[in-house]
């Protein structure tokens, strides 16, 4: 009997999302209980996938195909490989953490909130598993709806404007993706007479005209670049993060940004490896700009949440550097960086949420000395911050390291010569990160903060779980490397 079903993995949150509207769930307690149990079951089920996945045998690469819109060659087809598996595990984990963390942040419309969170989870998993371009696009767009509500209903500040900005940006990007998909679909049909949206066919087909390849590459790159974000396309991110509630920021930074990275690998790299070679240096330079520019901007922000948002952009630069290296080492670094950033940024947003709940401010000049009253939060934050800085034996380091090594052995000579610029991030990241720690936890404690609440149990659970994974992946990177590394090595050896 097959116990591992990809569609079940997507359906589970969908069902939970619907079940929350049963009249039985009439108290906050019941709703939260159900949401937490459901997310935990999902996570455990996900772990089962992780346990039974064998990267070296093709049989274990799960795939499911159901007929859907046959005349147009669209099928409900899902598949799983190393990269999507690790992303999906991360998704399941971060959503569980975000749901646990939502306790004090979400005060109204709980039922609708958790329902939207589950819908979002289903959509994100759908993107990771989709093996059909139409399905991929559908899930990609589906994820916008819950996210829009999550920011605009439960956010703070100029929440509607920020949610709109997020929606329009992503939507604007996806138009390019849609055009690219349709272009490939059409060309494939014209040249082979076969109407199909299956990634194996329209993706791995090589004889498209050059111009189509270029246009499609750029189209996809814009769509994924908005999500990642790549620097000129990033202005939705800081405002969305600042105005979203903390758990939503966790999901946004921890998982949704990974969609962009995943898309860049899955579509841009795997579909058009020959075009990617030509754009490798551009991708690499964009990565360096991300690192340096976002670090500098983060340093002068007064809002700590904005700082962390910019640090996300900066860390995604390392991903781009690894990707631009175009070899197995750099790619492994990039994927590792993606996973570790998912853990680190959700940890950081969790911390900021905890601080905001207690002090009702995020302005760094109004905070100070909190280490004395919140020692537990202080030490756990230190671990997360050091991981973000890239201290060895924590999860930030292997990704950074492999990305730079990969860039240095890149076949592109220009890439090799500019690696040192990317390494400037090594100096710049602690400049703003530790400045933030110093501003929030160090220094003299203000009188009004003397009697704030200590860390709650559910917060401790979230932080300790995140810190545990950060340390685990940092001390033994092989634990997650062995899931995706064989597949990447395989890709580059061809």
């Amino acid at each position, binding site marked *: 009997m097959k116990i591992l079903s990809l569609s079940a993995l997507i359906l589970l949150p969908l069902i939970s999302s619907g079940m929350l509207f049963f009249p039985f769930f009439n108290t906050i307690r019941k709703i939260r209980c159900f949401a937490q149990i459901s997310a935990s079951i999902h996570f455990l089920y996900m772990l089962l996938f992780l346990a039974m996945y064998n990267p070296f045998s093709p049989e274990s690469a799960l795939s499911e195909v159901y007929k859907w819109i046959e005349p147009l060659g669209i099928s409900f087809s899902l598949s799983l490989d190393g990269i999507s598996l690790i992303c999906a595990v991360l998704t399941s984990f971060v959503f569980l953490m975000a749901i646990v963390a939502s306790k004090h942040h979400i005060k109204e419309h709980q039922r609708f909130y958790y329902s939207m969170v589950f819908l979002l989870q289903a959509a994100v998993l759908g993107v990771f598993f989709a093996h059909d371009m139409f399905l991929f696009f559908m899930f990609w767009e589906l994820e916008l709806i819950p996210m829009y509500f999550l920011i605009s209903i439960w956010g703070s500040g100029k929440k509607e404007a920020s949610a709109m900005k997020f929606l329009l*940006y992503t939507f604007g990007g996806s138009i390019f993706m849609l055009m690219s998909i349709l272009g490939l679909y*059409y*060309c494939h049909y*014209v*040249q082979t007479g076969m109407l199909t949206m299956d990634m194996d066919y329209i993706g791995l087909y090589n004889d498209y*005209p050059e*111009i*189509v390849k270029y246009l499609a590459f750029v189209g996809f790159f814009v769509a994924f670049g908005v999500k990642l974000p790549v*620097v*000129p396309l990033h*202005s939705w991110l800081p405002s969305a993060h600042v105005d979203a509630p903390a758990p939503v920021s966790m999901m946004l930074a921890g998982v949704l940004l990974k969609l962009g990275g995943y898309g860049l690998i899955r579509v841009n790299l795997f579909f058009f490896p020959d075009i990617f070679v030509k754009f490798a240096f551009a991708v690499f330079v964009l990565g360096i700009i991300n690192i340096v*520019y976002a670090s*500098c*901007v983060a*340093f*002068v922000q007064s809002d700590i949440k904005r700082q962390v948002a910019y640090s996300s952009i900066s860390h995604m630069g390392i991903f781009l550097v690894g990707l631009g290296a175009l*070899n*197995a*080492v750099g790619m*492994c670094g990039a994927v590792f960086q993606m996973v570790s950033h998912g853990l680190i940024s959700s940890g950081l947003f969790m911390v900021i949420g905890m601080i905001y709940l207690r002090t009702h401010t995020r302005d760094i000049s109004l905070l100070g*000395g909190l*280490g*004395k009253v919140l020692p*537990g939060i202080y*030490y756990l934050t*230190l671990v997360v911050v050091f991981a973000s800085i890239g*201290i*060895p*034996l924590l999860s930030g380091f*292997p990704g950074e*390291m*492999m990305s*730079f*090594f990969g860039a*240095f*052995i890149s076949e592109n000579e220009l890439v090799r010569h500019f*690696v*040192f610029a990317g*390494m*400037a991030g*090594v*100096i710049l990241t*602690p*400049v703003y990160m*530790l*400045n933030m720690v*110093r501003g929030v*936890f*160090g*220094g*003299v*404690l203000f009188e009004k903060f003397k009697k704030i609440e200590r860390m709650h149990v559910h917060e401790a659970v979230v932080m*300790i779980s995140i810190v545990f994974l950060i340390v685990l992946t940092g001390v033994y*990177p*092989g634990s997650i*490397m062995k899931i995706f*590394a064989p597949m*990447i*090595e395989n890709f*580059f050896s061809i």
Partner: protein
Amino acid sequence: MSFFVDYIWLVPLFSLIAFLIISTGNMFVLHRNSRISAYLTLSSSFLGLVFGVLAFIYCYISENIWFERTFSWISVDALSFDFGFMVDNLSATMVVMVCFISLLVQIFSMGYMKEDPEYSKFFGYLALFNFAMCFLVLSPNLFQAYIFWEMVGLCSYLLIGFWYWKNSASKAAYKAFIVNRVGDFGFLLGMVAFGIFTFNYWINSDLSFLSFSDLNMAVFYLKDVFGGYSVVIIGLLFLLASCAKSAQFPLYVWLPDAMEAPTPVSALIHAATMVVAGVFLLARMYPLFEVSSLLMGAVVVIGIFTALLCGVFALFERDLKRVLAYSTCSQLGYMFFAIGLGAYSAGIFHMFTHSFAKALLFLAAGCVVFALGGRQDIFEMGGLRKRMPVVAYSFLAGVISLSGLFFSGFYSKECIFQAVFESGNIWLSVLFCAIGILTAFYLFRVYFLVFEGEENRSVGEVRSIPFSMIFSVCTLVVVSVLFGFLLGGHFGIKSFDELIYYSFKEGYRPSFLLVILSVCLSLSGVIGAYLLSKAGKRVYLFENLRFVVDWFYENVVSRVFCIVSKLFDFVDRYIVYGVVYICGLLVNLFSLLLRSLSSKNIGVYVVLSMGWLILLFIVLYGFKELFV
């Protein structure tokens, strides 16, 4: 006996276990601030010391041992980073030294930190530091050295900022971390470049990637294939790393500020162990430096310049701990200088004697600070010898050793002196003599001001010093008196340069004349200091000169960074977002235009839709032509 070499990784592991127990216990409030954490840390260091000593004895007996064990940590494609440990005479000796000073400092801290609210956290950090430092010296390859290089920097950050609620401490920790990070950047870039340039060499060799044991051949390969130019660049990057960690010019600025840390930390990390990691790196990377005379010259220049500069700064300083910090910079300059001259053993020897002497000085200074309730200004002290004779005589022993008059420091200094004279460069010799006088001068100035002379009335009541602190100080006195003598080549015990040498035994037998000369020079410094303190004069001249480099960093480098950041922020807010905003406006404008097209006349719609269809047809047709 070889068991202890096989299992030397247990030394850092003991400390790691102690750290984990303390930190988890702290988190779950099991034993907050109880003595258990101190005893755990102590016993872990003690076990480590026992292991280290036994391993050292094994190394001592067997000739020139080189034992290496690794396993693969990350491996992608052909690239494989290994993790493990390596034992040779240098690392075995270092492990013993680190564990020994750690242990004594931990015993000292039991008294010094007794009333601190975060007592057990302190011991947790100390255990973490011991773990990182031991693994750093046991690293078999550059990659692992980098990992623990950063880890010790992290511990240093945590311990400088231990009293994080003090603004000055939190700022000093920040500064130390950033400056060290500049060095880490050099290390990382140097390592990546070195690893990749010699990549083909490592693939063909059966040793692990970037292994120290094969560095010689890799450097030759590098020089053959890429030329001497690449050696110089990579060497300079490593030199940058060493300068940051070992507080050499121009990156020494963090060390004086790091004195915000509790005094035991200053003794352990910022005098005896972590700051010598830079010298240790130079020693490990010696094959690289050796092939280029330009690099060796750079090391010499940086060393001698820092030694002189920080010696002068120490003379102007009035804070007891900061004088010692400047002195540390200056002495580390000595070691750079020795290694740059090719006197490998002498440099390392001086590293050990300095570590013991400086740890002693800091711990004695810690006793003084403790007794006076936290006061550190040397002009507010005086005549303390009568109040605390044991501390005074211990401090004197440390001062004598460090200024090269007698005891351990004498032996190592003579070795370097000999090497300088053999190099034949008259200017270097003169500078070296000047630094010798200077060292004796500023150290004895502190001694005379603090312990001799008239009793200062403002001192008031003196707290009694706990036994654990006295015990540590006295033990260090014994070691720093005897260490140099034991390894100075007497009684048939191997002398230091027979134990640790690079390619040949240097065999320093200083001539009698040089010894007399050097002692006389130091004595002249002592007499100068005595006269100055007798006259009761203070050195005010150029007192603020020592902040010039700090001023440069604070007002030029960080200002420029701020301006650039603000500029980027402006670009981000108004230009990048402005473009998007204008796009939005254009859409609005376009919709205005379209809205104006709507009318009651149905004919307009017919014309519009027909025109649109024709346009679409043309476009699609054109596309088909293009593709088929």
